[in-house]
């Protein structure tokens, strides 16, 4: 009985998701949906994934972050580099993201086990250790693994039919982009979050700006001439299909949902409600924050890979800090701490502002956007501070844990009961 109750919302959720998948896949296959709208749907999905990540960090964990676009950019460029190199008969990108991140993970586990033997290791010491092993992991990969495994991997993949090898490469590229975003957020998060900084928002804004500057100079400061710096990276294969979009999107939604429903999720929420109280019941506040931050950034990195392989072109300007306010506006509009709100608002945002308005408004509208956005936000704050959808969740996503604003609602609810 209990089990059935639990399974039902999940069953409906998956059913409806599959239905949506088919409803979009059929016209795509029949050529009824033009490239413009196809792009809008994919873009909506990517932005929504980025914003779900932000909601985890800001809405559910209470850490105001402007870093999402930085991680979105890392995911986009890293995955694009993998597929670009592959198209040029070079498997190094593939091997570097794969083994670099696997080795890093292994080393992180070792470092964590080692540091656990000491009491309260300072954040800077931790940061130093983790950064050093990351550098070591990637150095090992580039120096030894790539020359060792490169030719073999190439011939192995080339022996496969192109349709198969492409999917494998794309999968590694997407996962690699997400992993790069995860690793950078982890390294960035240790000093900033361990120190319990009040300036997390500013630090993440700084991070986004630094990433943008680095992207402008990928061909000069960084050793990636194929990214072409401020001129923009071209020649990325357009491999993103609706199936990849759908699978990535579902991955994000289900991972986030299950994380929030787990006991770890409770610690994430408890930290948002009251850090000091969380500490008093024995929650490791810094770990809870880093976890939410890393998972949220991984979502952004994955979205970056999806977006890059739909656009087939990347420009640092798409990741400047003004753009990075997009997910922030969406998460506030949709309601902090509501996955449903983020999903609906994310798609709506791209559909309306990038889809319809671009089609039907005069071309000069873009310049007005930065006037319109803040106005929308301002109105929102005045009229519906809890977001369009408040704390509403569809049953599958609904948590047993209450929301930020429950205390306000709790005062009204008993009255309703009496009336009924």
């Amino acid at each position, binding site marked *: 009985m209990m089990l059935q109750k639990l399974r039902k919302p999940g069953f409906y959720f998956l059913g409806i998701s599959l239905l949506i998948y088919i409803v979009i896949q059929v016209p795509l296959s029949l050529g009824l949906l033009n490239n413009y709208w196809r792009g809008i749907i994919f873009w909506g999905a990517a932005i929504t994934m980025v914003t779900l990540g932000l909601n985890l960090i800001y809405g559910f964990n209470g850490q105001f972050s402007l870093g999402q676009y930085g991680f979105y950019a890392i995911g986009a460029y890293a995955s694009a580099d993998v597929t670009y190199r592959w198209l040029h008969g070079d498997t190094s990108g593939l091997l570097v993201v794969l083994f670099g991140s696997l080795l890093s993970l292994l080393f992180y586990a070792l470092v964590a086990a080692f540091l656990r033997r000491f*009491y309260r290791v300072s954040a800077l010491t931790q940061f130093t250790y983790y950064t050093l092993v990351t550098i070591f992991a990637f150095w090992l990969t580039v120096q030894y693994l790539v020359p060792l495994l490169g030719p073999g991997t190439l011939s192995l993949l080339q022996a496969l039919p192109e349709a198969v090898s492409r999917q494998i490469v794309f999968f590694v590229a997407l996962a690699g982009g997400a992993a790069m975003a995860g690793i950078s957020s982890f390294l960035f998060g240790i000093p900033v979050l361990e120190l319990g900084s009040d300036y997390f928002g500013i630090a993440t804004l700084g991070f986004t700006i630094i990433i943008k500057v680095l992207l402008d100079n990928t061909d000069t400061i960084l050793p990636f001439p194929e990214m072409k710096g401020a001129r923009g990276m071209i020649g990325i294969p357009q491999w993103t299909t609706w199936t990849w979009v759908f699978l990535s999107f579902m991955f994000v939604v289900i991972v986030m949902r299950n994380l929030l429903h787990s006991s770890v999720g409770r610690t994430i929420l408890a930290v948002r409600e009251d850090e000091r109280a969380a500490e008093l019941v024995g929650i490791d506040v810094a770990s809870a924050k880093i976890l939410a931050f890393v998972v949220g950034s991984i979502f952004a990195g994955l979205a970056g890979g999806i977006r890059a392989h739909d656009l087939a072109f990347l420009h640092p300007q798409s990741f400047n800090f003004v753009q990075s306010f997009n997910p922030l506006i969406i998460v506030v509009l949709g309601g902090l701490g509501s996955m449903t709100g983020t999903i609906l608002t994310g798609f709506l945002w791209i559909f309306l502002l990038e889809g319809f308005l671009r089609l039907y408004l005069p071309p000069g509208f873009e310049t007005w956007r930065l006037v319109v956005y803040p106005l929308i936000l301002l109105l929102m704050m005045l009229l519906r501070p809890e977001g369009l959808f408040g704390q509403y969740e569809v049953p599958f996503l609904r948590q047993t844990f209450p929301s930020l604003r429950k205390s306000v609602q709790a005062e009204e609810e008993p009255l309703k009961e009496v009336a009924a």
Partner: protein
Amino acid sequence: MALLEVKDLVVSYGAIRALHGISFYVDQGEIVTLIGANGAGKSTTLRTISALQRADSGQITYDGKDITRASASAIVHQGLIQVPEGRRIFAPLTVRENLEMGAYSRKDKEEVAASMEYVFQLFPRLKERLEQAGGTLSGGEQQMLAVARALMAKPRLLLMDEPSMGLAPILVEEIFDIIQEINAQGVTILLVEQNAHMALSIANRGYVLETGTIQLEGPAKELAANPQVQEAYLGGG
């Protein structure tokens, strides 16, 4: 061997030194009280034991282990629980959820329900308000919730920072009865209080803290009879 032993503890806030090297101990099963005027450093002492504040020097030993540099969460996981000054409950969470969060550090999850029953016996009022948001409880009820939440962690040593603060006299009596009851169940208690009279009446031993140093110590009865203490903390006897 003492359950908790604090040795030469020095703590400062920036340039201001709050504790000038205090030493004391709490034996298994005792109620020990730490009394002193506002700003004497009582809360600082408790916060440092719980690792919410860093010690400059000195040593804190709990259950035979040096916990001076342990993390706050590791300390809670060892059954050293604090009911902090000003309650610090999760305001948006319901009473039930607050209690459940209190049991976060426990390994014996099967017995959480039994602890919940025990807590309701001590605080029947909380049971009536299970689904009410913690922040909407009255001050006294919030204090009860804070104590109840700490008990949910199944403490071995309970640090209580002014549990009677802001309570009506009748509730103060109730809280002190409950402290004795908890102690009778085998929980060791380190009690910080402004209400020296009540604290000394239930404690085994006491320490008097003045501007970061321990001025007097001894069995609670002796301290209560001490003219200095009477003058300073018991309204001149």
